């Protein structure tokens, strides 16, 4: 099978590459092994939240102090603003509605009741302008009886510190009795499926209205709209007070929905999405990748003019660590990382962990390097790239999306 471009990885980065290329008329395939980090999407995309432990208010300014090895610096700060704009519009064309600006972080409330700076926030969720006060001071936090993945007391504690008086109440409904019988079934996606059917919304909204008569806002876990895109909108119409949704423990319902919508956008543009398939290796000739072999395609080789590796970081198995080495498991590409395992970790869990900076080595055009030689048609994008600690910086989604768009621009040149 022959494509213009093949992307390895179906997460945020792979989908961004696929959509952008397909929008430019390229015949693309994405090979995805299955779950990706979008399944624990918080509802916001971070661009740059912190530099050296200090809050960043303008990410575009904050980037200027990043090291020259940082993916943003390598993309080129002169390109970043244009690419952030591109990213937002790509998401909008996929039917996802986000608010936020690249030159000014806003804040979101986390499920621990802590305020966090971020770039783009999905419309399901509430953006705040300030981190030290809310536009309201009376809230009710509602949870589903028996749902252990939403911690109302933590939220109440955080709100209290910012002078919001919050009450906690539970809602029981017969629609959830069946899944409640088994605690391992009482998960966000199963609650969402009940709402998707449409028959729980009216009764739920009625109960919420009764319980929120004396408050200004209603805080709920974000368990609405898995396959059905309109549940949040309907709830907003039927519930009298403004809703503030907060992420529950993963899997993230808005995350799964976003992933489905991005995949759908890619397929609507004519892209081929190979789901649940794993790339086992490739044929190289003269520093070019000719084709790849996958688990589900046996001896049918997948050929392309250019390939993009967007296979994610350790948890997505884009990089693998054994007791004595780090490696890139598909092609055996060169790695940017310490070869001595004693240097991978810091003894304090919350410190800047060195392993978080590791990734696949690339040349100045974001092309992979193997045995010291650039592979001229194998590009690398997203969190499989090293050079940053996206967790400490609050830059995970930004690095994924912007390096993807940059890589696509290299290919289209």
């Amino acid at each position, binding site marked *: 099978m022959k494509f213009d471009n093949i992307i390895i990885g179906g997460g945020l980065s792979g989908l961004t590459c696929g959509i952008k290329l397909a929008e430019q008329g390229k015949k693309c395939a994405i090979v995805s092994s299955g779950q990706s980090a979008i399944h624990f999407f918080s509802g916001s995309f971070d661009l740059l939240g912190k530099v050296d432990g200090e809050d960043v208010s303008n990410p575009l300014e904050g980037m200027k102090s990043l090291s020259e090895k940082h993916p943003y610096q390598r993309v080129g700060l002169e390109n970043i603003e244009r690419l952030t704009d591109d990213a937002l519009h790509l998401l909008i064309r996929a039917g996802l509605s986000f608010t936020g600006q690249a030159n000014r972080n806003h804040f979101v409330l986390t499920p621990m009741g802590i305020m966090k700076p971020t770039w783009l926030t999905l419309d399901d969720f509430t953006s705040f302008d300030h981190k030290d006060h809310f536009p309201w001071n009376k809230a009710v936090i509602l949870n589903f009886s028996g749902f252990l993945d*939403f911690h109302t007391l933590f939220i109440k504690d955080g709100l209290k510190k910012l002078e919001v008086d919050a009450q906690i109440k539970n809602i029981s409904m017969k629609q959830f009795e069946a899944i409640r019988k088994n605690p391992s079934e009482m998960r966000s996606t199963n609650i969402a499926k009940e709402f998707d059917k449409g028959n729980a919304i009216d009764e739920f909204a009625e109960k919420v209205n009764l319980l929120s008569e004396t408050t200004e806002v209603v805080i709920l876990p974000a368990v609405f709209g898995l396959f059905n895109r309109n549940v949040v909108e309907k709830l907003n119409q039927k519930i009298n007070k403004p809703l503030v949704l907060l992420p529950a*423990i993963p899997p993230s319902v808005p995350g799964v929905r976003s992933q489905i919508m991005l995949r759908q956008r890619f397929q609507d543009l004519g892209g081929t999405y190979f789901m649940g398939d794993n790339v086992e290796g490739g044929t190289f000739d003269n520093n070019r990748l000719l084709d790849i072999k996958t688990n589900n395609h046996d001896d049918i080789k997948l050929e392309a003019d250019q390939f993009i590796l967007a296979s994610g970081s350790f948890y997505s198995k884009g990089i693998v660590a054994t007791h004595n080495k780090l490696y890139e498991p598909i092609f055996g590409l060169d790695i940017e990382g310490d070869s001595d395992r004693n240097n991978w*970790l810091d*003894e304090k*869990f*919350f410190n800047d962990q060195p392993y978080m900076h590791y990734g696949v080595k690339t040349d100045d055009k974001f092309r992979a390097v193997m045995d010291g030689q650039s592979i001229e048609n194998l590009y690398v994008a997203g969190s499989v790239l090293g050079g940053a600690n996206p967790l400490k910086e609050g830059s995970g989604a930004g690095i994924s999306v912007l390096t993807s768009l940059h890589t696509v621009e290299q290919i289209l040149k």
Partner: protein
Amino acid sequence: MNNLIDLRRRTRVGMGTCQGELCACRAAGLLCDSLEEAGKAKDDLANFLQERWKGMSPIAWGDTINEVQFTSWIYEGIYGLKPENN
């Protein structure tokens, strides 16, 4: 028994398949009910993660390092948990 580390000694919570990725937060949420201050329960959760890290870091390669990275993203990335004064 009023902290997660003691709860772990009794029940081995945090030492099963998810290695504290998800269960620690569920347990902390429940334990929070019995504590006077929710802020303490958050710090207790942070302590618990640090304590588990001691047990995991000597073997943090293979699947363990993948799980640790996932755990960090959940607690620090999504929840914004800090080592102390939460």
